């Protein structure tokens, strides 16, 4: 940390130290009409080598010019050439601020907007300023130079956004303003995408390769024309559009993960997975035998990982007479290998009296993961005439994950006579997860009359997740010592080799229709919008498993090939697991009006959403209560959005909107399934959450890409959903985890955020900070000794922040851009304050993730025209994620139950995830 501060300081000094002799010319080049600074304009003294390009704030500086007379020229594509004669004397600093004009003076403002390059920062800032919603946008150009290769990683750069990581350290889920992933939704080009999760609605954001998007929008306020089930916000991925001239990008890169430089990659053959389980192969009722199962995924190999390979391309152009037909095709392929090493202390499900924590196991987990991410999208649009156009959009995303999880588990509550002793279990899990998202959208836009517009979308989307034949090899031994403290050799015994199959498919058919009518009433242009949508969803989840367990007790393990096994449940295990189907119909309609009253823009309206959902479990309805069920509800969601123009480039915004969040698909199914720690049961009396959301934001876009946004928000959420351990009302007396509406006081979430970006010629600084405060009161258990001396678990009300919410979230980026040298550099810092990582059902035993700071660096240098090289380094400081239990570590540092890795000052360390640095070096070709 100290070292880094030093480096940053040095960078500052280098950037701001200017040697001074002879004359200097400096100034700002801007658009004559709009006053917007122009980035990348060339300012030269003709006939000399003196010149420069304008920086991010439109500024330029040419120094060390010998005294004399010169002709100064300012050149920029599609702008008129500007010429001026200057005379410089020794030591003089001449300031020339010049506006230059577009070549065609007939362009109106709307067209100037459309001239903004798609995917540019300028376009992003402009959209943020002119949008009806409260938005934060990251442009494709920024993504290019960000160190991130997936959208999930990109999203963490947005103010108020934090991410939850997968086991290999890859950002996966998104928390917006402290609101859990369940409260947010994901759009592609404004169309909602289904989820491949087996129970929930949210979409894993690491399936999206970063290169495919034109921009990423985080939408924090919802207007009536948008779907109403976002309380945190919505993420809209706007994919690349057909450009108006030939555009071609391509890039290729390779890289390595530090963890896998330090240790071997553990792998297994992909062909060792049976894609179908014995029931799927032979039919229901089939009694499986040993030969139905492969053993190859239990035979692991260890070797150096191959290098990563990443490729992407985009081509687009417009064709035919009048360029009526536009087409764009983008592809991305990322094949990456990652290693991560974690330490995890498994808490006892139930603590000791007074909620003193008890730890049952120490797990050392080593992950070796190969991720193959393929993305392809294309859009074809045809413009019949300026009033009528249609487009067809297709997207296919696939994420294949081959993962080996190697756990060495030492039971610390059993037979432990000091450090390094106890029963030891080894579990080696091989998984092949295939996720895919497909989307096909036909869109039409028709200007029916001068002020009546119709647009529609017909959508087919499918998300799927297939985890065929996941295997887990379980062996066990004992680390005991004799009276002299010497280890007693113990054999490694074979326990089991479990195979499981899971498949989720979620298919949407949807239609959207919008009508926009812009009459002029009393001299004011009013925009009326009305429309509706209908979506039919069908999803299915299949799960089955078989345990091949040791055919004899205490069987010594040599290899999986020699293991003597029996199939314990030959007919499979489809009864008490996730086998269910859901159908959902949502139809919604809305009306909204927008009027500009001098400086005040008012947008208000109402959206009505009808939800009709049915589910059925794959069990006998006469044996299992709640085998099928039906849910229906209607929401009327009003909203109002005010935008007041304080000055030319300053807005004050106020929004109120009501929004909802629907329970996850499995959360309403009141049937018990067997979980890893607790069994789980859905809740048919669960109601959807409803929130009243208030937002206030001040915006200032002083010039160029500079911006200052200061805002505050307040959310009042009734029926938020939290998990509690229950036994009454359910049937299994051991207790089950159940999602429940928090009744009584609604959950409150409020906060403030600030976003500031400022460029100083070639140097830029971009920062955001969000403060969030949420509270929700739920019942937890407390283990006490009552007055009669009985130990009891009693209910207590506990107020806490929402799970995953950090009070402080900040991002800081230092940007260096030299258009002349073609050099871009980006140093970014993402700070996520402490937050609840794992909720305990007992008071005071939540696992808290400590604040994390991740530093990433990336740079890009043009080598010849259109061609540049780039490098990205993730996790510069090799930061680990540390999770702590807010209880004294004293019971765990000495004596029989001493635990290793207790490096924290006073609290107990319970998890440490180390992902290592990631290096990437690549080459990019760009024609635009």
């Amino acid at each position, binding site marked *: 940390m100290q070292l880094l501060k030093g480096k940053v300081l040095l960078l500052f000094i280098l950037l701001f130290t200017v040697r001074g002799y002879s004359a200097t010319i400096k100034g700002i080049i801007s658009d004559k009409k709009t006053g917007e600074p122009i980035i990348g304009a060339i300012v030269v003294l003709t006939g000399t080598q003196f010149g420069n390009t304008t920086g991010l704030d439109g500024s330029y500086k040419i120094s060390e010019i010998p005294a004399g007379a010169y002709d100064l020229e300012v050149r920029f594509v599609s702008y008129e050439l500007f010429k001026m004669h200057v005379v410089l004397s020794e030591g003089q600093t001449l300031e020339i601020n010049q506006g230059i004009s577009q070549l065609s003076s007939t362009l109106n403002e709307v067209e100037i907007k459309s001239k903004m390059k798609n995917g540019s920062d300028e376009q992003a800032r402009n959209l943020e300023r002119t949008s009806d919603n409260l938005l934060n946008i990251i442009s494709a150009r920024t993504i290019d130079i960000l160190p991130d290769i997936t959208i999930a990683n990109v999203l963490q750069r947005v103010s108020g956004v934090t991410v939850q990581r997968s086991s290999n350290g890859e950002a996966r889920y998104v928390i917006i303003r402290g609101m859990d992933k369940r409260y947010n939704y994901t759009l592609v080009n404004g169309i909602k995408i289904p989820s491949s999760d087996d129970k929930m609605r949210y979409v894993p954001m690491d399936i999206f390769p970063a290169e495919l998007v034109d921009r990423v929008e985080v939408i924090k306020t919802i207007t009536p024309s948008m779907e109403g089930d976002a309380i945190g916000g919505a993420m809209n991925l706007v994919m690349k559009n057909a450009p108006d001239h030939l555009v071609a990008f391509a890039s290729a890169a390779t890289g390595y993960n530090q963890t896998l430089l330090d240790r071997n990659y553990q792998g297994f053959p992909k062909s060792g997975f049976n894609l179908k389980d014995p029931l799927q192969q032979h039919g229901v009722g089939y009694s499986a035998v040993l030969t139905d199962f492969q053993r190859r995924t239990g035979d692991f190999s260890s070797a150096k990982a191959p290098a990563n390979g990443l490729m992407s391309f985009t081509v687009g152009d417009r064709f035919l007479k009048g360029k009526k037909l536009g087409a764009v095709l983008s592809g991305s392929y990322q094949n990456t290998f990652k290693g991560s090493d974690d330490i995890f202390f498994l808490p006892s499900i*139930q603590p*000791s*009296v007074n909620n*003193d924590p*008890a730890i*049952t196991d120490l797990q050392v987990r080593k992950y070796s993961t190969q991720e193959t991410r393929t993305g392809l999208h294309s859009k074809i649009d045809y413009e019949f005439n300026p009033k009528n156009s249609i487009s067809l959009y297709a997207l296919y995303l696939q994420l294949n994950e081959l993962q080996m999880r190697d756990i060495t588990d030492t*039971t610390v*509550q*059993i*037979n432990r*006579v000091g450090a390094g*002793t*106890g*029963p030891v279990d080894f579990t080696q899990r091989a998984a092949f997860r295939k996720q895919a998202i497909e989307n096909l959208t036909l869109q039409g836009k028709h200007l029916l009359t001068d002020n009546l517009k119709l647009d529609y979308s017909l959508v087919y989307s499918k998300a799927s997740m297939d985890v065929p034949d996941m295997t887990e090899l379980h062996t*066990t031994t004992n680390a005991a010592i*004799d009276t002299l403290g010497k280890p007693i050799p*113990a054999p490694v*015994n*074979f326990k089991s080799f479990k195979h499981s199959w899971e498949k989720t498919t979620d298919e949407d058919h949807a239609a959207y229709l919008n009508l926009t009518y812009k009459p002029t009433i009393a001299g004011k242009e009013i925009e009326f919008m009305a429309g509706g949508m209908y979506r039919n969803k069908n999803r299915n989840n299949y799960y089955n498993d078989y345990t091949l367990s*040791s055919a*004899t007790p*205490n*069987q010594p393990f040599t290899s999986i090939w020699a293991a003597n096994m029996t199939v314990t*449940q030959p007919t499979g295990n489809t*009864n*008490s697991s996730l086998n269910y189907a859901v159908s959902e119909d949502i139809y919604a309609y809305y009306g909204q009006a927008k*009027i500009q*009253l001098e400086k005040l823009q*008012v947008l208000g309206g*109402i959206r009505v959403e009808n939800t009709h959902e049915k589910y059925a479990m794959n069990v*006998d309805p*006469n044996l*299992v*209560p*709640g*085998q*099928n*069920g039906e849910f*229906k*509800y209607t*929401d*009327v969601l009003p909203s109002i959005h005010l935008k007041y123009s304080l000055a030319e480039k300053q807005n004050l915004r106020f929004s109120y909107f*009501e929004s909802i969040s629907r329970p996850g698909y499995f959360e309403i199914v*009141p049937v*018990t399934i*067997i979980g890893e720690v607790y*069994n789980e049961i859905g809740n*048919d*009396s669960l109601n959807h959450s409803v929130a009243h959301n208030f937002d206030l934001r001040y915006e200032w876009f002083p010039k160029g890409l500079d911006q200052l946004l200061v805002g505050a928000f307040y959310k009042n959420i009734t029926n938020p959903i939290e998990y509690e*351990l229950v*036994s009454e009302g359910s*049937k299994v*007396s*051991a207790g089950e985890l159940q999602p429940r509406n928090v009744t009584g006081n609604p959950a409150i979430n409020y906060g403030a955020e600030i976003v500031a970006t400022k460029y100083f010629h070639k140097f830029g600084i971009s920062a955001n900070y969000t403060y969030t405060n949420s509270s929700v009161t739920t019942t937890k258990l407390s283990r006490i000794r009552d007055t009669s001396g*009985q130990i*009891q678990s*009693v*209910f207590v009300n506990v107020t806490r922040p929402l799970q995953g919410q950090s009070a402080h979230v900040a991002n800081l980026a230092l940007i260096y851009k030299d258009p002349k040298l073609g050099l871009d550099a980006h140093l970014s810092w993402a700070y996520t304050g402490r937050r609840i990582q794992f909720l305990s059902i007992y008071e005071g035993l939540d696992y808290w993730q400590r604040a994390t700071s991740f530093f990433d660096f990336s740079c890009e240098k043009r080598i010849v025209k259109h061609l540049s090289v780039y490098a990205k380094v993730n996790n510069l400081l090799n930061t680990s994620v540390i999770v702590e239990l807010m209880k004294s570590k004293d019971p765990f540092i000495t004596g*029989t*139950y001493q635990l290793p890795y207790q490096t924290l000052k006073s609290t107990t360390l319970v998890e440490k995830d180390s992902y290592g640095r990631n290096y990437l070096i690549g080459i990019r070709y760009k024609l635009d």
Partner: protein
Amino acid sequence: MKQFQLAALAILSSALVLFSCQKRGNDVIFTSKPVIKAAQGISDSVPLCGTYKGHMAAGKTYTVGPGCNIVVNVGDTLFMDAGVHLYMSPASSIAVKGSFISLGTIDSPNWITVNGMLKTDNPSVNAGSDSAYTSKRLWCGINCDTSCNLLVLKWTHIEYTSASFTATPPFPSLSGTSHAILFQNSNGSFIMEDSWMYGSADEVRVSNGKVCIMRNTIEKLGFTGGDGFNCKHGTVGDIAYNLFIGVATNGSKASDKGTYSGPQTNLNMYNNTYVNGGYRRSSAGRGGSLNYEEGSKGMAYNNIIVNCKYGLRIVNNPPADTAHMKYGNTLSYGDSANITNQFYPQGYITIPQPTDIPVPSSFLPSPYTLGQVYSGASVVGANNPMFVNYPLPATQGIANIAYVGSYNFRLKPGSPALGVGYRGFSPMIAVPIDPVFGATEVTPPGKDLGCYQSDGTGNKH
């Protein structure tokens, strides 16, 4: 213009107030409910399958069809009168939502078993090829729902249980494989007297309930895991005068882990004889005789532990309710140092009692820290309890002697277990006393250690 703005704002804000105060109902319209079939009359002429109540008549033989469940509805009672044979088919089960009462007698015991199974009671046969655990003909056990008030098993043989479910079970299951017996109502009573269990892939689970488990003989319970009686939070009562031989893990275990309704687990375990326990559990260190853990309490006296993998374990993480634990007068015997080193299992907090045999001070180091590694070499083979017919030191592999067969675990005259029992406490008697609807006899602590008393009381098998 200002007025226009104000008007627009007023309209919008009133709409806002109007709609934001809307009342919402419940989202759910309906969820399906099982159709409850009324109980049928019971007959021995056709295989049983479905819902029953009433009596299985004395001396008759009944058969349950393959994969069939016998369901006892809430409020109904199904009786097995004396001398009934109930033959179970593969993957069949008994599901009790009401009450189930089996009234065998010493002369006419009842049998719930698999017809024609041959016992493999041979020390040279490994458990992996023993039909008691691995037969494809195992059935799915007696499973009581949370509504079951009463389960009574008197003089009843229960054999070959814990098959895995092949279809949706008609009761909430805790896992994909069944338990030998599952009881889960903290207000209900589970009485098992003078009965036998033989062969099971898994354990008896008392998730909560009032129990009286007395004078039973438990053989070959649990294949590669499972305790004899695994009692979780909300279980109170007595486990006494039982002979446990060759249980996969513990013979009897008390834990206060689990649900929060019902009382703290409080179990008296006294005058039990534990032989050759704990050897089929694949994972190390899970116990082999009796066990108190996670906030449970009770009294454990007068037990004999012979050649079990571990002695009495009082677990520390999370700890048993040690302030309310009393124990002593335990006779431990081991053929090898591996066994005697674990009389006071290493890594736990069992306090050696001066009333124990062997006397702790005779072989433990001084000072002794609870749970420390010590050498029990000096007491190998000491304090032979002198069973009537069971050789000690054992002449064959103890792990495979998981049956009684022709052995006799009564005590010979001169046994160190005679006359040293502690009788200064009373049974808890958590269940009703009744010849039909409760326990027939609750035997108080005996003057001899173990389940067989020299005065003829205790275990009558």
